[in-house]
């Protein structure tokens, strides 16, 4: 009898192997997350659901993703970005600066998840203008972003690759870095096309506080 139980146990272990342990921990973890959070205003529990990108980056725990996995995420992210509907990449840098200063959006305190109630949160992580001393350092400094890249006329063909890179980054940060810490402002519906253009102008307009 005892032998038989052991046999079944062993057979079970062999059949499922380490995958079973993983699945069990996964289930326990998911159970912990589901039972620990509740809806509050616009911040509902379904926000805990992960897409493939977030799932892969979470699992890596800060380490680099395998090259193939990173490339496939970046490729899909890039494919999600559309150029501006009217072909114009730059809006108003003054509106962009206001957005960059605004750190609000999407918390359970916010009444609405509409793009109009969201800020760009840029200064939280980046240096942008010389005047603003209160800037974060999670992301690289963007001070003189356009000027340092020689952008004197954002409309010019020489500026095109720089303009497009910035547009892609703002729309879907994962297009250039699979596990970027930056939100996907366009793809996640956090900012409207017009708002994104204003941020583009802040970065690339030679007259903007970033470049002057």
């Amino acid at each position, binding site marked *: 009898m005892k032998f038989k139980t052991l046999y079944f146990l062993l057979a079970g272990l062999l059949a499922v192997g380490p995958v079973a342990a993983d699945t069990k921990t996964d289930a326990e973890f998911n159970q912990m997350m589901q039972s620990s959070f509740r809806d509050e205003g616009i911040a509902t529990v379904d926000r805990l659901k992960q897409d493939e990108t977030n799932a892969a980056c979470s699992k890596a725990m800060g380490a680099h993703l395998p090259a193939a996995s990173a490339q496939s995420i970046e490729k899909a992210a890039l494919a999600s970005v559309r150029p501006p509907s009217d072909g114009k990449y730059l809006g108003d840098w003054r509106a962009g600066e206001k957005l960059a*200063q*605004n*750190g*609000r*959006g999407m*918390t359970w*305190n916010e009444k609405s998840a509409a793009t109009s109630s969201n*800020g760009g*949160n840029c200064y*939280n992580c980046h240096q942008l203008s010389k005047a603003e*001393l*209160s800037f974060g350092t999670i992301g690289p400094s963007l001070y003189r972003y356009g000027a340092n890249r020689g952008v004197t006329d954002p409309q010019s063909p020489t500026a095109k690759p720089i303009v497009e890179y910035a547009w892609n980054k703002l729309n879907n940060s994962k297009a250039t870095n699979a596990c970027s810490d930056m939100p996907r402002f366009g793809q996640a519906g956090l900012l409207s096309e017009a708002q994104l253009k204003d941020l583009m102008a802040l970065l690339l307009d030679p007259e903007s506080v970033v470049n002057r």
Partner: protein
Amino acid sequence: MTTRRELLKQSTTVAAMLASLGMYPHVAWAQSSTYNAAAFEAKNMGDLMKALGGGTPQESKDVVITGSDIAENGAVVPVGASTTLPGVKRMLILVEKNPSMMSAMFDVTDAIDANFATRVKMGQSSNVFAVAMMDDGKVLFASKEIKVTLGGCGG
């Protein structure tokens, strides 16, 4: 540490008890009838001096204002006002751009130094003043700018 706390707690409890019975021998209650409401409503130096009966303030290097150049949070900004000049009647702490200018007014006696530190609220970056009102009617001041930064995420 614990001893000090125990001691303090005992003394404060006793104090509170006696005070509530109106029997506390050492500490007299502060009097509210003398509160200078007009001075605390003044929006500018002119109105303030009118309310306090002082003349035109003059800048003086004998008056010292202490504070950091930048305050991480406007809700709590440490400020100090002091002078070693003899004959000080009152020391004031003012924040130029607050809705009302004066934060605090200290009456100086022979038993204390004209040296006070407290913490004030600042709605925005502003000049902060230490003002010494002298026995001879002179009003002396020192000022410094304190920048209030946006400390957190702004969310």
